[in-house]
């Protein structure tokens, strides 16, 4: 400080120097808390997930593609880690994954999380557009997929893979057929309507819609369903999605590949 004062041609103890010192202190005071607040704000979100869950995988891939730092909080569903009272109280009252904690702000539901992080500027626009007209196209898919693609793929997976594993009982052929029919009715819509005239679901390039959808469809591999046989467009599109998302796509699907006993490109 005194050296600076000398350089500025001020003598020690002069009024000017005092004023300068005060100004410095002032600016330091102003700076310090700002820096602290920024540091607090910068702490990465905590991401609670299990790669066995489809929307968990989707967000995982999206975060990785976005280069968004996050704190890894793996929740082992198979060990019932989401069913504890602690989890319910501190992490997600709905006791599911995925969910996040952004500096105390807890949020569940994958699509709500995606929209929240996009509004915070964490998701690149090419994955989830900001311009409302383009965004609404992606939203249209995301809202459509819950009770159509997601529900029916998940029911098929549950009936053929999960329930027999949990109960030791094999489902009847008729039940499997019915589940398959429901699922294929929606795969038909993906093949014929969503992929009618574009390389990806909501336009010519990869968007979050594709990632959510692919994660749902990949899950059926574990139930020995091969979507690639009946659906040539879905087959080609899945390849494109995987290519556009790798290496993260394969990391997220490691479990799925392993459990289904199929490599990423293998036929079932």
């Amino acid at each position, binding site marked *: 400080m005194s050296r600076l004062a000398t350089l500025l041609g001020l003598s020690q103890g002069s009024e000017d120097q005092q004023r300068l010192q005060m100004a410095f202190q002032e600016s330091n005071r102003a700076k310090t808390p700002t820096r602290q607040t920024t540091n607090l704000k910068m702490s990465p979100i905590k991401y609670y997930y299990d790669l066995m869950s489809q929307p968990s995988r989707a967000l995982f891939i999206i975060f990785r593609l976005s280069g968004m730092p996050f704190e890894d909080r793996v929740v082992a569903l198979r060990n019932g880690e989401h069913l504890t009272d602690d989890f319910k109280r501190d992490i997600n*009252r*709905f006791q599911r994954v995925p969910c996040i904690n952004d500096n105390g*702000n807890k*949020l*569940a*539901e*994958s*699509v*709500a999380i995606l*929209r*929240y992080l996009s*509004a*915070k500027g964490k998701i690149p626009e090419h994955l989830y557009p900001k311009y*409302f*007209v383009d*965004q*609404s196209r992606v*939203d*249209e898919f*995301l*809202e*459509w997929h*819950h*009770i159509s693609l*997601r*529900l029916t793929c998940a029911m098929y997976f549950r009936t053929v893979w999960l329930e027999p594993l949990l109960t030791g009982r094999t489902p009847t052929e008729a039940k499997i057929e019915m589940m398959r029919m429901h699922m294929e009715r929606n795969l038909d*819509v993906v093949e014929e*309507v969503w992929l009618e005239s574009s390389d990806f679901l909501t336009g010519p390039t990869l968007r979050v819609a594709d990632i959510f959808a692919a994660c749902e469809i990949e899950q059926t591999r574990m139930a020995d369903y091969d979507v690639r046989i009946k659906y040539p467009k879905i087959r080609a599109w899945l390849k494109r999605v995987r290519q556009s998302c790798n290496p993260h796509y394969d990391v997220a699907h490691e479990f799925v590949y392993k459990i289904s006993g199929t490599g990423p490109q293998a036929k079932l």
Partner: protein
Amino acid sequence: MSKAIKYYYDFLSQPSRALWIGMKLGKIPFDDCPVALRKREHLTDEYKKINRFQKVPAIVDGNFQLSESVAIVRYLSDKGQFSEKLYPKSLEARARVDEFLEWQHLGIRVPCGLFFRSVWLYPVNGIAPMPKTEKIQKLVKDVETNLEFVERLWLEKDFLIGDQLTVADIFGASEINQMKLCQYNVSEKQFPKVAKWLARVRESSNPYFDEAHNFVYEKSKQAVSAKV
């Protein structure tokens, strides 16, 4: 640009009612384009040109077509044509409403919709016989598991997201009300918060709430003033 959007809907569809009530409350002008599902008007080639998924609700704004009620709410909101009170613009408040809107698909819409379809829509229209008591009980159980979530987890305050009515409430109430057609009324004893909340939502969004639900009320042969 200033031309009103065209709104394609049927009051027999839960999200159609919800969006209609939301737009009316927000005083959003729109061209009324009812699509009679019971006459299968949504399955015509003409309607396919309006909505390739052949469902309601849908909108046409100039030459822009959009389906999916929640996507439509967001589109209109971003265009400045949806009440900010009903769908907030601030980051955190919006995330809370979104959390519900995303949850309700599988949490409310699927169980209530399945019950409605199996116990009213299909038997009334001769598509399928009335299910066995056992099956009905299972459907009711699925509904009530989720009403329990609404009661214990969502309704910490007067409305689903805090102290004020938002689209979340309108979507939720529209789904739950539809079950009146199956003679299912939310029990005040079993779900006291949900029952009071349903009445509150109706009150806060009337006269539009009743207008949109007129068909449901009539068909379920219950006086509008009946307790929910």
